């Protein structure tokens, strides 16, 4: 792990140096095709240099930076669309539209794949690295420092206090265990993730019975289009759950804040901490 970290640092340093030499090569027409890289380029790149982001990002249910997409062309990650946008840099996720990526690379487009590891250090590194590539290193550093500071403040607030256990319960009974960014987020604000005791990995399903038997002190749901009728959302409205929760409703966090590792994690953490804090001291 440390070796990787060092290696990354070396790569970043190399990029920094090369950046200084090739200042003219800062991309001016950036195309991003992945929800999470969209968020990164919109927050990092110089305004006006983002030519296109994916259609998902324009939807405020999906992305917290939807308001930044005004006037930006939306793409669906298809090779044809991207070529017609004449990008000088394509930023995408590791698992996004693989076939299009292969095609674009063969034609000779500059493509970088960003894969954010599920931990805070990984988020930090990914933002810094992309910041360097986009010629916005200072911007990136400010952003990750802000994120660190927010979490340090939250940690200080939570230090030495116990808020009990929490279970993320999402549509269809999905929950988040370990290792995951959300699990780290919960630990940092002094909450114990019940899903870890239930043996859930990064992502898994729990039955209504398991939820009732685990008896978490708090439950958090990720709000994602709750008004659209679906069986998935029905599970969150099960009478058993309503009776179990009583007068303490679930804490709702917008899903878009935690979809991607990034600065909005701090907003999610603050929201959860505020809610459990209020309950503890009525």
């Amino acid at each position, binding site marked *: 792990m440390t070796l990787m970290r060092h290696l990354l640092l070396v790569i970043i340093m190399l990029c920094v140096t090369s950046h200084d030499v090739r200042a003219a090569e800062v991309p001016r027409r950036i195309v991003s095709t992945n929800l999470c890289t969209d968020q990164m380029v919109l927050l990092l790149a110089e305004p006006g240099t983002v030519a296109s982001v994916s259609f998902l990002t324009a939807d405020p249910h999906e992305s917290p930076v939807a308001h930044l997409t005004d006037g930006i062309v939306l793409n669906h990650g298809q090779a044809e669309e991207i070529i017609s946008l004449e990008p000088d840099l394509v930023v995408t996720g590791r698992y996004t539209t693989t076939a299009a990526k292969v095609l674009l690379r063969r034609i000779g487009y500059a493509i970088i794949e960003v894969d954010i590891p599920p931990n805070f250090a990984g988020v930090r590194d990914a933002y810094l690295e992309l910041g360097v590539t986009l010629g916005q290193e200072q911007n990136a550093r400010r952003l990750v420092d802000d994120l660190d500071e927010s979490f340090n403040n939250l940690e200080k607030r939570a230090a030495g206090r116990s808020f009990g256990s929490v279970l993320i319960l999402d549509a269809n009974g999905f929950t988040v265990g370990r290792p995951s960014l959300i699990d780290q987020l919960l630990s940092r604000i002094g909450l114990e993730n019940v899903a870890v005791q239930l043996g859930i990995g990064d992502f898994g*399903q729990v*039955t209504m*019975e398991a939820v009732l*038997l685990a008896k978490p002190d708090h439950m958090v749901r990720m709000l994602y289009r709750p008004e659209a009728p679906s069986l998935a959302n029905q599970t969150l409205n099960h009478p058993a759950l309503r009776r179990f929760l009583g007068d303490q409703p679930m804490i709702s966090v917008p899903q878009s804040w935690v979809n991607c590792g990034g600065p909005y994690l701090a907003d999610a953490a603050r929201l959860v901490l505020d809610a459990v804090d209020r309950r503890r001291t009525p």
Partner: protein
Amino acid sequence: MTVGSFASSVGSREVSPVLLLSGLAVLVLVLTITSLFVGRLGIGGVADLLTVRGQDPETFRILLIEVRLPRTVLALTVGATLGLSGAVLQGLLRNPLAEPFILGASSSAALGAVIVFYFGVAGGTALATPLGGVAGTMIATTLLLILGGRNQEPLTLILAGVALNALTAALTSLALNLAPSPYAALEIVFWILGSFADRSLDHLVLALPLMGIGWVLLFSTWRCLDALTLGEDAAASLGFNLAAIKIRAILGCAFAVGAAVATTGVISFVGLVVPHVLRPFVGYRPSRLLPASLLGGAALMLAADIGVRLIDTQLELKIGVLTALIGTPFFFHLLYVLRRSGQ
């Protein structure tokens, strides 16, 4: 080819109706208790459950009444519905292969329910979804009876069912893909394979009265079904109003199957297997087959639902997977017997 002539190739094992029905009732009772107390944890879970009862009676009550009870009662009543409607359809159409799933009545119910549930209706209530299922089944069964004509050949009817199944499955998929909900496209698995997982008392309260209406209508055909073994003309000459009987059967299937499918998705083959297994025990009398199939369907469904909870898969198996694994070999067997007996 009628159920009557089909009988001769199997042989009768008739037992007294009282003995048969009380035997089935005991089986249903045992399975009901098992279903209430055996969760996903299996027999070991019972001990855990009793510990919870001692330490935390409130959680125990919620678990039993809000989670396990609706699941168990739905498995029981949906199974009974499918068994009963299979028996009535086989008797009415004098076709050994008739049942809600094969004839496309179940998938039509799913289509009706899906359209209402995902797209909503102006001022829609929770009751709208089961009623959507009822409407879907009603259209499908009416269509089948019109298509089938007077002397329904078994295979003509089955082919009509195949066509109806293909059409409604495609339309259900289309509706789910167009639905405004982000989860809809994934939920097709529930609608085509069925599940009792996480169904609540809310669902039960909506579905039960509709299924009840369906059962009454289906049972009201019992006298005529015996006469129908002699053919439609004979039944008419005995004073039965066949048009009225058919309408009652259509409405009965629509209410019972429509409400069942709208609540738990399409569950295949139960209506085929249950009447066939029980027919020799009732002396091939369609009327006596009805209560037996009602109880038999309930027992089979409860057993299958206990099965999907005990089979250790990461995500709970959909119940239709299990019933299709039991039902399909049975269907092939019936086709084989049909061919051998000279069709």
